[in-house]
C-alpha cells in the first residue's frame, strides 16, 4: 500500500512536468518526482521492528556484533544511494533555476509557448 501511494506521487510529478506551461512549474514537477523516488528507495529497505544501522556500545559482545543487531538492522545500502541523490538534486535545482532566470531576462516571460515564437 505505501508503494502504491509513492507511485501516485511520482505520477503527479510527471503530470506537472509534462502538461504545464510555466517554466517554474516544470521545475517543481521534476522536484516532486525526485522526492518520490527517494522515498521509494528508502521504503525498500525497511523492516518491521528494525533499528537504525548505527552500532552502539551495547551491540558489541565479546569483540563482535551481536546476533540481535544483525537480525534487526535496516538495510544500509539504499540509504547510502539516497544520501548522495539528495545533494545532487540540490545542485541540479540550482542549474535549472539559473536557466529559467537567463530565459526570463532574454524573453521577458516564463511561458514556454511564447519562447518558441519569438526569435530574439
Amino acid at each position, binding site marked *: 500500500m505505501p508503494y502504491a501511494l509513492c507511485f501516485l506521487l511520482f505520477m503527479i510529478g510527471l503530470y506537472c512536468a509534462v502538461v504545464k506551461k510555466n517554466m517554474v512549474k516544470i521545475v517543481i514537477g521534476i522536484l516532486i518526482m525526485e522526492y518520490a523516488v527517494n522515498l521509494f528507495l528508502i521504503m525498500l529497505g525497511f523492516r518491521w521492528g528494525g533499528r*537504525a544501522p*548505527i*552500532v*552502539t*556500545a551495547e551491540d*558489541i559482545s565479546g569483540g563482535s556484533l551481536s546476533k540481535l543487531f544483525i537480525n534487526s538492522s535496516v538495510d544500509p545500502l539504499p540509504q547510502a544511494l539516497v*544520501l*548522495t541523490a*539528495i*545533494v545532487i538534486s*540540490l*545542485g541540479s535545482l*540550482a542549474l535549472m*533555476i*539559473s536557466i529559467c*532566470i537567463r530565459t*526570463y*531576462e532574454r524573453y521577458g516571460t516564463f511561458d514556454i509557448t511564447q519562447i518558441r515564437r519569438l526569435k530574439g
Partner: protein
Amino acid sequence: MKGMTIIVKNISSFVKVLIFLFGIYIILFGHLTPGGGFAGGVIVASSYVLLMLAYGREFAEENLSLPTTSRLDCVGALLFAAIALFGLFYGATGFFWNFIHQKELWGQPLKLLSAGTIPLSNISIGIKVGSSLFLVILILSSFRLETSASEKE
C-alpha cells in the same frame, strides 16, 4: 541586495556561529553518529547563507569573497582525490584503500580517532559541498541584483 532590520542583524550574528559549530560537529563525528560529510557541509553553507541574508550581499562578499570560495571548492575536491591516491601508492593494493585502518590503528571502534581514512574523507567532502552551495547562492543573488536594476530603468 540590502540586509534586514537591526533586530535580525543582532540575533543572526549570534546564531550563525552556533550553526557553524553544529555543522563542524556533524562533519567530525560522521563515523560515529548519523550525519557525515554531506549533511555537515550543507549546514556550514547555510550558516554563511544566513550571514548573506541578514547583512546584505556586499558584507558577505567581504567576509568570504567569490574567488576564495571557488578555490576552497577545488581544494576540497583535490584533497578527496589525494586521499584516494595515497591508498594506491601506500599499500599498492587499490584506489580508495583504507590504508590507515588496515595497517596501524586497529581495534578501537566507537572512539573519535578510529576508522582510518573515513574522517579525513568526511572533512574533505564537507569542505567541498559547503563551498559549492554557498558559491551558487552567491552567484544567483548577484545576478538578480543586476536584472532588477536594469528593469527599473
